[in-house]
Every structure is written in structure tokens, then in C-alpha cells.
């Protein structure tokens, strides 16, 4: 008598929670997700107009922020001389914290601009802001593509994970072969990035041979211009 067939767990669509706030704004419990990729304007105004206004405003207030910090520090120093006021050490700490916060805010401003310019939805607004504010344009030197398209040829279920830190606007990623942890498994070599001329964004192309052993294959993604590492690519091939 034949041995009964051993059962396998079903394949899952995903194996981890969605933590990014952009992706779980749901309309209701069972599916039906509404992503935040298309923010709705509640007053009928075009979104890019709002963004343009926001960007301009952001730059216009940064000096104001610094002045506020200076005033706060000055006021704290005045208070320190009054009876019952904070101990000098705590006062110094507060001032130091305030300065650190402004430093962080500066870094955040740059990061926010990066986010803005990478978003295709927001780009028209950003463009308008730049046109209206040469200073703003000069201050923003980084930006790049984050919209990758995938071309996958495989006869088995395959998960692809690309973790990448975008570089400059002309960034073009490069990946060589992907290797499994098991040395005996042959590497995945039919993997490459190329540029889609229609969208000017990178496309990841991957062929999974039929005989490729199941497992996780990974490799480092580098900037093709500098050869500096900028991310990882991992591919899980199901059995």
C-alpha cells in the first residue's frame, strides 16, 4: 500500500504586516484597500497647487524657525536668573535640546524634499514651486527614481524583494548574479536592470530557470556609476 501523500502548507500572499502608514488606510476590514497614493483634495483645489504652496511656505518659514529658537534660548537665559528658576544644568540641557531639534529639522527638511520630488503625484507641484523659487531649487540637489517596474519570467511561485536607497536623479542600479546560501545551488544569473525609455525609470528583469532549486537567492545592488552598494535584491523561489 502506498504511503499517504504528505500535505504542504499553502503559499501565502505575504508574511509580514504592513507598517507603512501609506498602505493600510482601509475602507473596511476585509480587503478593499484604499492606498494613500492618491490623496483626495477636500476643497476641490488641485493637489499640485497645494503642494506648491506648501513647498514655498516651507522654505519661507525656515528662517522663522531659527529666529524662534534664538528667542527661546534667550528667554531661557533670562529666566535662569530669577529665584526658583531651573537649575543651570537643566537649562543648558533644554537649550542644547532646542538646538538639536533645529538641526534635526534641517535634516528632515532635506529628506522631505527628497520625498516630494520622488513622488510622481506631487512632482507637478514641486516643479511649480521650483519655478517660483530659485532658492528652493538651488537648495535641493538630490532626487531620483523610485518607481521600479518588474519583469519576471518564472513557472513557479516567486517572491521578489528589492530594498534600495535611491541615489541621484541619474541613478541606474546594477546587480550581478544572485546566490543561495547553499553553495551547491547554481546562482541566478538572468537578472539585470535596464532603463525604460518611455518612463525613464529602471526595470528589473528576472528569469527563473525551471530547474532552479527552491530557496532564497540574494545579491547586492550597486550604483552603476560609482559601484557603491545601494541596496539588496532577494528572490524566494517556492518549491
Amino acid at each position: 500500500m502506498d504511503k499517504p501523500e504528505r500535505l504542504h502548507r499553502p503559499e501565502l500572499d505575504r508574511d509580514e504586516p504592513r507598517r507603512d502608514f501609506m498602505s493600510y488606510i482601509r475602507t473596511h476590514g476585509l480587503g478593499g484597500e484604499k492606498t494613500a497614493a492618491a490623496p483626495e483634495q477636500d476643497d476641490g483645489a488641485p493637489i499640485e497647487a497645494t503642494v506648491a504652496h506648501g513647498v514655498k511656505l516651507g522654505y519661507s518659514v525656515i528662517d522663522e524657525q531659527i529666529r524662534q529658537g534664538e528667542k527661546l534660548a534667550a528667554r531661557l537665559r533670562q529666566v535662569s536668573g530669577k529665584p526658583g528658576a531651573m537649575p543651570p544644568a537643566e537649562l543648558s540641557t533644554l537649550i542644547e535640546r532646542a538646538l538639536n531639534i533645529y538641526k534635526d529639522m534641517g535634516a528632515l527638511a532635506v529628506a522631505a524634499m527628497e520625498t516630494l520630488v520622488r513622488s510622481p503625484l506631487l512632482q507637478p507641484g514641486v516643479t511649480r514651486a521650483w519655478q517660483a523659487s530659485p532658492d528652493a531649487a538651488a537648495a535641493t540637489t538630490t532626487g531620483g527614481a523610485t518607481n521600479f517596474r518588474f519583469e519576471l519570467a518564472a513557472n513557479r511561485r516567486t517572491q521578489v524583494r528589492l530594498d534600495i536607497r535611491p541615489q541621484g536623479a541619474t541613478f541606474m542600479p546594477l546587480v550581478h548574479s544572485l546566490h543561495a546560501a547553499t553553495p551547491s545551488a547554481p546562482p541566478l544569473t538572468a537578472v539585470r536592470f535596464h532603463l525604460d525609455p518611455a518612463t525613464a525609470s529602471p526595470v528589473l528583469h528576472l528569469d527563473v530557470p525551471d530547474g532552479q532549486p527552491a530557496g532564497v537567492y540574494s545579491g547586492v545592488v550597486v550604483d552603476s556609476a560609482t559601484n557603491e552598494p545601494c541596496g539588496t535584491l532577494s528572490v524566494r523561489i517556492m518549491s
Partner: protein
Amino acid sequence: MRRDESIKVAIIGGGCASITTAFELTRPHHRGKYQVTIYQVGWRLGGKGASGRGPASRIEEHGLHIWLGYYENAFRLLRECYAELGRDPAVCPIAGWRDAFFPEPHIGLTEWSRSGNWLEWLAYFPPADGLPGDPVALNSPFTLRSYLARTVAMLRLLLFHTRTRYAPGDPAGNTGPDLPGWLPEQGEPPPATVKTVIATMTRLLRIGVLSSAAAISEALGVLTVALRSLPAFPERLVGNLMEAVVSAIRGRLESFVTEQDGLCYKWEVIDLVLAFLVGAVRFRLMTDPRGLSAIDQYDSREWLRMNGASERSLNSAFVRGLYDLAMAYEDGDPTRPGLAAGQALRGSMRLFFTYRGAIFWKLRSGMGDCVFAPYYEVLKRRGVRFEFFHRLTDVKLAPVESLGFGECPYVEALEFDVQAEIAGGGEYQPLVDVKRVPCWPSTPDFSQLVDGERLRQEGWRFESHWERRRSRARTLRVTEDFDFVVLGVSVGVIPFVCRDILERDARWRSMVANVKTVATQAFQVWMTEDMAALGWTEAPVTLSAFTKPFDTWADMGHVIPEENWRSPPRSVAYFCNVLADPAAPSDADAPGYEASCHDEVRRNAIDFLNRQVHHLWPNALAWSGGFRWDLLLDPDESPSDPGSAVAGERRFSSQYWTANVNPSDRYVLMLPGTLRCRISPLDNTYDNLTIAGDWTDCGYNAGCVEAAVMSGRLAAHAISLWPPLEDITGYDHP
């Protein structure tokens, strides 16, 4: 998959996660596709939540169990369980879930005052809309922008609203004291458009420093609206306004501290809220794809300190209570607190801003009676088999050399010690009736066991990790006895039962090494005087941040009617906390370790009652000093024979205490940097094995009922693709 017969699922362990998996896999819509058997050590279900009925049918718990108002998954499934159970209220007093739980709107914290006393700090949290387990409404509240908006709104209330005291009996419940938790919907700015909010931001940012209270208040209101409107706003703009507000508030707080000593606690809460707001912006939590998990490598205090919280705030009752609630002391050492910042914030946000009905829900009776007995009855009806007295000893993997090309490793066999045989060969009947409620006893029913009287006389301790006596060994084999395995034992047990996996799998070794647990201790006292007579004049409360070694106390007088005393007590109190591990780990393997821990808890409790409890109950102090031991009610004492009474502290022996040192009973910690070492029930490394428990990577990585239930639902999804992940409330959460 094989289609011609049902799929055999072996679930190891009978705690919250395992029971949940069984409940999901046997839902009627599966049409009997899954044939589930639960293998349980000893005689009762519940795991760390197990309870039993002891002398006088008194309830004896592992510790203090309170369900929080955001336990959406736990409440939802339990409500479904009660609905399916269909108990007749005329027959059983705990017929529905509302009979089993009642709202507890108070949280108590204690603070050591400058005058050398413990001061109680009681907070009232008014009822929130809905009930836990209700369907999640449109526009899920589990978004960081929603949390931030509520935090800012709360901040405004803390800063500028006049303090009002809670009036007992106020049906509206809108007059709470000034602590976080109520939602200041009144006083919000009118609905605003993106344009108008930006315009207001512009004006506020241009008027210079936000020096006036009115300007700060207005700015906070605008921030609330702005945060609710994210992501339609550039992050930086919101950040700029938030930073301006934080700076202005910090300047203003200074006057609080110097001029109004009585409002120091207010400073502490505001300071912590400000630190959170600043941190949320600095660490870009609103846009980080990891959500709050991005800061899980930091300890909560460390992260708040990095973002400007003062040392005083970091050592406030509020923060200490947070650590106490999470038993967050590595190796049980009070000097080594550790709590992953992201999960702590996630928990705090859920606790304060998403509770429904009440912030706390207390159990009317024992956890076993209110939760596990109903589940047991429903699962029995659905055809689930229960194999009690089965201790897992090894999970055997198929040999590597036997695996085919590309074949995933799988569990080949499960080895058990059968601790006792059931007389007559049937299934053990575990429940007893107490006042018409099915309950779990604190000891097994030896009369149902083969040679039971001998086992009882020999003192077999079936639930003890160190009890290795058995009736026989038993091996289950894949395809013959099971198709899938749900490993629902706690992480502390893994090293003893998963030797093959640990030998081969570095991830599992990392999990076992890093996902640490801590022993806990608890005691319960039944007393002859009520709380008012003992000197506690406030409402019944659950209070934390008290002194060690028992930092948490709950007034549990409400369970008295559920017990069966000849002369009922007038009050009942539960205390709990962590229990320090021995300095040398090898002590835990020494003979007598369990007994020595048990005695240590007894000594701790006696010392605590003698030296500390009078801070809460001043009238429990004898005139000569020390605890009034005559307050304790001995269930075996005969009122008609006063001569049988035991005097002095020896009376404590009639009360209940426990040292939870079994590997399966230890509480799972959320230490910084360790949550990434957890493995998800969805992990598919092993072809026929999934895991379940509050120690897994279940989306809410905390030691609690809700995490266990979420994990159990994930394990069911891993096997059956049901429930959908989107249906597990709070799984997709920043």
C-alpha cells in the same frame, strides 16, 4: 493537497494562541476540513492564563489578568464563542460575554512623594464609543496620523483646559481628570480645508514665537487638523509647525515647574507627549515603512530621553507603570528595565486612543472560567479532540538526506510523554461545576486516571517542568497521525522540545537566545474586612508602579459571589510582579528549584504585607506594627471551632501564591533589539509546521492575550488561508 479526507492538525499546547487556532480551523465554513486535536500537558487549558478552583472554590490564578479595551481580536472571538455556546442565563450566570466581563474605567499609579509617602494617582477614563470586538468602523483608527492628531489634541487639553474632578455617577462621564485617555472632541476647530489650514499655519508661523497661550492653543488645533489630513501635507511643513509648538510649550512648561509645584505630574505627562511628538518627526515614523518598529532597537526611556524628555518625566509613575504593566525587567531585576520603544509606543497608542467601551475590562470570575471553559465547550461541540496529560518531548524533523530536490524540511514525528492514562480509555472530563458555572479545578480529578489514587498520594505534579514521571511514551507520525503541526507551547519550552530545529536553523537559535522571558510571582489574599475598613476609600482599582517586589495590585472583591465560602470574605486582593532569576542559570536545573522559588514568593508576600501594604491600606497595620494577620480568611478553618485558628503570619499559608518559573509559564519580554529575532507564524521554512503564541512575530509583539490571539489567527491563516490577514485587527498597523 490531498482532497479525499480531512486534514489532521495537531496543536501542541492549550493557551490562548492554540485555542484560537483551533477555533479558526473548525469554523463551520471550513465544513469539517480540519480535524483538530489539542495535546495538553496536565489537566487544564489556559497556559499562562489558566486558573483553577481551590478550597472554598476560590479562584486561583497565575497572576492578574485584565483585558484591555483594545483587545479587538480577543474580544471578537470570545464574543463569537459565547454566541455559539448559547448558554441559558436562567441556568448559567455567566451566559454571555457581558456576564464574563465588566468595564473598569480607573487606572491607578503610585508616586513616592517628597514627604516620604506613596501618593496614589488615580485616573478615570470615560467610556469610549462601541465595544471591543465590534466590527471595525470605516476609516480605521490605527494610523500614525490619527494617533498624532489625538496626541496633539490631548496635549492641548492638558495645557489649557481647567482641571475638573471626576464626579462619581456622572452618566455622561465627560468630566474626567486631566490625564491622557479621553478624546477632546469638543473645542476642536471647525472642519477645515487643506487651503485654510495651510493659511492658518502660515499666519501662526509668521507671528513670531508662539508666546501666548491662545496662539499655542490655536496652533495645536491646527496641528490636529493638519495631522488628520496627512498625507496631503508635505511632512516638513507639519514638522515645522509641530516644532514651533513644541518649542513654545517647553518655554511655557518652565513656568509650570517653577510656579506650580502641584502640577509637576502634568509637566511629566506633557513632557513625555512632547518627546513623542518630536521623536515621531525626527525619526520620520510617519513615513518609515517599518512604522514604529523602526525604533524597536531603542529602549523606551532611552528613546524618549533622546527626544527631550526630562529625567524626572522618565522616572515618573506614568513611565514606571508602563514598564510594570509589561513586566519589563530583564531577568526579573528591577534595576534592568527594558522595553522596546516602538512596541511600547504602539501599545500606548492602542491603550489610550483605541479602547472601546472601557480602557480596562475585568473578568467577573477566573480566566479559566470566563475564557477557556467556554472555548473548551464550543470546540468539543465542533469535534475537536483533547488529549490531556500529554507532554511534548521532541519535534523530530525528517532527516536532511531524505529530503527531495527542493523539498522544504518538515516535521516527521512528535514525541510525547503520556503522563497518565484515562480510566476506561475515554477522554478526560476536565470541568467542574461551581454555582452552575463550568470551571477548571486547581488539581486534577485523580478518580478519572488509571491508578489515580496512587498518583495523588505520590504527589505527581503534572504541570511542573521538572516532573518527569510518566505512564508511557507516545509517538505521532506525519500523514498517519497528523498532517500539520501548530506549535503553541511558549518560547521557554522550545529549547527542550525542538532540538532538531535548533541544531539546523540559525534563525530559531537566534530567537531562543534573544526572545527572553521572565519568571513572575503572584499572591492572593481573602480578608475579613472590606477595603473601606482597611483604609482604601477610593473606587475599586487596578494600581501599578507601586513598590517592589509587588508593584501591581488589583481590588478583586467582585469575585467573592463567584466563590463558595461558608462565611464569605469582605475583600479580595491580587498582587503580582516579576520574580528575579537566580544569578547562575544552572540553579534552575537544580533539584528543589521550583520549591525554593515557591517559598521565596511566600516570604516576599509576608514581608510585603508586613512592611509595604499599609501605604495602601493603613488600617491593615497592627498597632504593634506589621500586618494584621487575623484579617486573612482560612477556607479550612471552622467558625464553630475557634481553637483551630492559626495565629500570626503562619495564617498566610492558607492564602494562595505562585512562582511562575516553569518555562511555559514565564512571561515573554519585549527587550530592545530583540523583536526582530521573532519568527512569524506565517514563516514557511517548515512545510507542515507553524508556531503560535505571544512570543512570535505576530504584528503586536507584546506579552498579552491580544498578541496570543493574533498569533493564533495567523497560524490558522498559515494552514487554511483563513482568516484573511486584513481581518486580523491591528495586524497591519504602523
